[in-house]
């Protein structure tokens, strides 16, 4: 499973989500969309969202889930934490 967290440095809920995932021992890739316009455009295209945090979960079987905002309940369920 590949997990990507899209974030910006000054986003409080992004920090809380990353801390939550680290605490639970979840490995994830972080993309700071403030660093490049490309990353921002890519996130909007992939997820249809223009706000952070957005978490993209890509499973081995090719299915994808997008979690909008720091949604602890949904993350807990999708990642079986």
């Amino acid at each position: 499973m590949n997990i990507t967290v899209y974030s910006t440095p000054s986003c409080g809920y992004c920090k809380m989500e990353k801390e939550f995932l680290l605490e639970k021992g979840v490995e994830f890739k972080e993309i700071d969309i403030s660093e490049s316009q490309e990353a921002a455009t890519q996130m909007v295209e992939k997820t249809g969202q223009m706000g952070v945090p957005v978490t993209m979960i890509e499973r081995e079987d090719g299915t994808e889930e997008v979690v909008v905002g720091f949604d602890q309940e949904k993350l807990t369920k999708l990642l079986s934490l």
Partner: protein
Amino acid sequence: MVFDTIIVGGGPAAVAAGVYAARKQMKAMLVADQIGGQSVVSDGIANWIGDILIPGPELAKKLKDHLESYKEDISLSLQDTVTSIERDGDMFLVKTKKDVYKTKTVIVTTGGRHRKLGVPGEDDFNGKGVAYCATCDAPFFRDKDVAVVGGGNSGLESVVDLLPYAKKVYLLARRDELRGDPITQKIVRDSGKVEILYKTNTLKISGSAMVESLLYEDKEANEEKELAVQGVFVEIGTVPNSSLCKGLVDLNDREEIIVDHRTFSTSMNGIYAAGDVTDELYKQNNIAVGDAIKATLSAYEYVKKFGN
């Protein structure tokens, strides 16, 4: 098991109530989705006493650590939400997503949330151009035209957050003047990027996949006008999270819980409230903490006399 008190909420007021209830050895539980409060989205809080400047998430962590240091003395039900509070004899039944609990008192510290415009398109385009946190989402609006609705401090601060990214910012104020601090007004006016529109009333947000325009009423000219924008940041204040208490305790016309400002009791014996959910004049972290402590000490006195 009957609790002495159940604290509803996860902001600074709730944590203060939790720490004090634990230290008083009350049989207490705190129910919250997460610990932090509204300031979690703040880049830097400059008026939290004891810290010169602290980022919102760091304050949230300190609050959580402090509360969890008492986990032997207080039950915590996190990632949980209270769905109803009902009177049950001289006690209360608190229902949450996970369970039902009986308690002698309830301390309501549910805080406030962003006030929405309540216009067509706002919910449909939430996260698709409509945003409520400029510090978080400003980088998405590089070289775009955006509108900020709200002429108070949070509106002005959102404009400042957007300045490094946006091509042009329209600031829509309801009145014929801005209410925010003069120091921030100056930054906004001197930027050369901001057009301030006074006496406006936002009517509609439109687009296809993403936001494309905002329709507003120009109250001076008495006509409807449209702005071609790709983003709309809504900063028109907060509303209290008091729906849980509707019909249970008295609310004022702003839906804030009316409290006695000496004891923080409400119109219902055994229910206390503190922080931004109440009719406290100043919505401040430090004040919410002090008010919640008073509420907790009042609840403690009430429990001591309970049944006698």
